[in-house]
């Protein structure tokens, strides 16, 4: 039993250290000046960590928005599909209008 608890404690410690290391890398990455990412592998990893953290915050925000408005997911997809369909129909309308303009021109030529 003791071994098992010790194993879990080691596991928790490992995660805690990794988390602290990660947070420190993000902080150092955020403090970088533009172009500093090419100053070596450590600088690159820290810059990357800051970028990943930014993306994580965006993901968190998006998930939070989705969870507060549960019905939003499907209707927004439908709205997007509807918009796409609307655009394709409008494209077709444009082509028909252009054909109509050409036919008007030809008809006028024939009448002359």
């Amino acid at each position, binding site marked *: 039993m003791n071994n098992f608890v010790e194993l879990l404690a080691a596991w928790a410690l490992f995660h805690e250290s990794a988390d602290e290391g990660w947070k420190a890398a993000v902080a150092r990455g955020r403090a970088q000046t*533009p*172009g500093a*990412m*090419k100053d070596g592998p450590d600088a*690159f990893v820290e*810059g*990357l960590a800051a*970028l*990943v953290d930014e*993306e994580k915050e965006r993901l968190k925000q998006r998930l939070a928005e989705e969870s507060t408005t549960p019905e939003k997911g499907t209707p927004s997809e439908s709205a997007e599909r509807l918009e796409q369909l609307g*655009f394709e129909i*409008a*494209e077709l*309308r*444009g*082509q028909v*209008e*252009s054909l*109509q*303009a*050409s036919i*008007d*021109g*030809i*008809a*006028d*030529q024939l009448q002359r």
Partner: protein
Amino acid sequence: MASQTNCSVDIPAGRGRRILAQAAAGLLRTLWHCRFGLVDAQRRRKIVGQQARRFCEAMGPSFIKLGQLASVRPDVFAPETVFELERLQDRIAPVSTRVIREAITRQLGADPDRVFADFDDEPLAAASVAQVHRARLRQAYRPVRGAVLPAGTWVAVKVLRPGIDSIIAADLAIARRWAQRLSRFRRLARWGPIELVDEFADMLGRELDLRNEGRTADRFGHDFKDDPQVRVPRIIWRHSTSRILVSEFVEGWRLNELGAAERAGIDARRLAIHGADVFMRQVLVLGYFHADLHPANLFVTPEGQLCFLDFGIVGTTTAAQQEAIAQVLAGLVYGDAARALRYSRKLGLEIPETQVEPIRAKIEQLVHTHLLAPATADVRGFALGFLSTLTDFRVRIPAGYGLLIKALVTVEGVSHAIYPDLDLMEAAQPFATRLIAAQLMRPERLRERVAAARSAAMEALLA
């Protein structure tokens, strides 16, 4: 007056001789400036480019258009020629307004004064194949996207020069005849002169049907609808045909008119970076890109938007190419020449194994000289050096690859016109990193890597 026919195309008398005479004069000038071949290869190619540009300008609209199309084809022509042809002056004397009015009447079946509430007889621009006038809508119009354009809205009316298609068809017929003659010589036949003329004829044919340009503009505008900094004039299809394209009139500054006063009113640095970002989104996400960006085709509006015009030449990328391009970009941005070269080969660059190392070394040198130099990066210098290296090593450049490199150089030019001090490589670093990270995080890529990662973990545990 027509004297000959070739595949039912009327060729004006003496046109072939005039072209031949001009070409011969150009050849003599080239030989003289090249000191009859004594100057080095790079300088020689530059002189050939200069003479080719002068030849196109002297021979009129169809050759100017051919030159413009050639300027986005480093896969066919030497890089120095391509970069020189980019400077072609596409400004010629306007056609008389009477002729333009007649063309509109013939196309739309009504006089411009009946079609539009106002029609400005003074042309806004006159180029080799088309002329643009300003007009106002007589009635409100609902475009393919966005809000209804009310009556009285200013529009730009682009009209193909009357007779331009027969001029181009005649010149192409002459070019085809010469291509047939040239292809009898084995040394010249490997360049595929007939196929080249046919390809150019196809490209020109697409450009001469203005509806293609209109459709691409609508698609582009739709794909960037969520980006408030991108503006694409909407098309008024009711008054557009294959020879007339009517679009929203957008006011703004051409990039070469952008002075300190104009820059002061907008966030120029942000807009310049955004411009590069928009291009990357086209290439790496949407799968098509505006391949003819030059100062006349891009505006900055007083609201700080980038306005894209003239979608005559469009390049495309497949999903596999997008992934490889992202890796090439990352390789260049972080100075990893081997990676850039490895993924360039995936894009169709055929480099024999024996030449990989010398080319990699040369690219590494170019990357450090032009892209990672302490001063501002010089993408143009890098591209010219890179394409010259491939030419020197006789490596065939795939069409899409060449077009992309040319487009990247243009993006640098555009970004610098907006904000001269921008270091494009530095600006591209976060973008390239995000892109690679996003690619690695794709479920299919993760699945691919899981097995290898599991084996590596087991080995580490059992060791």
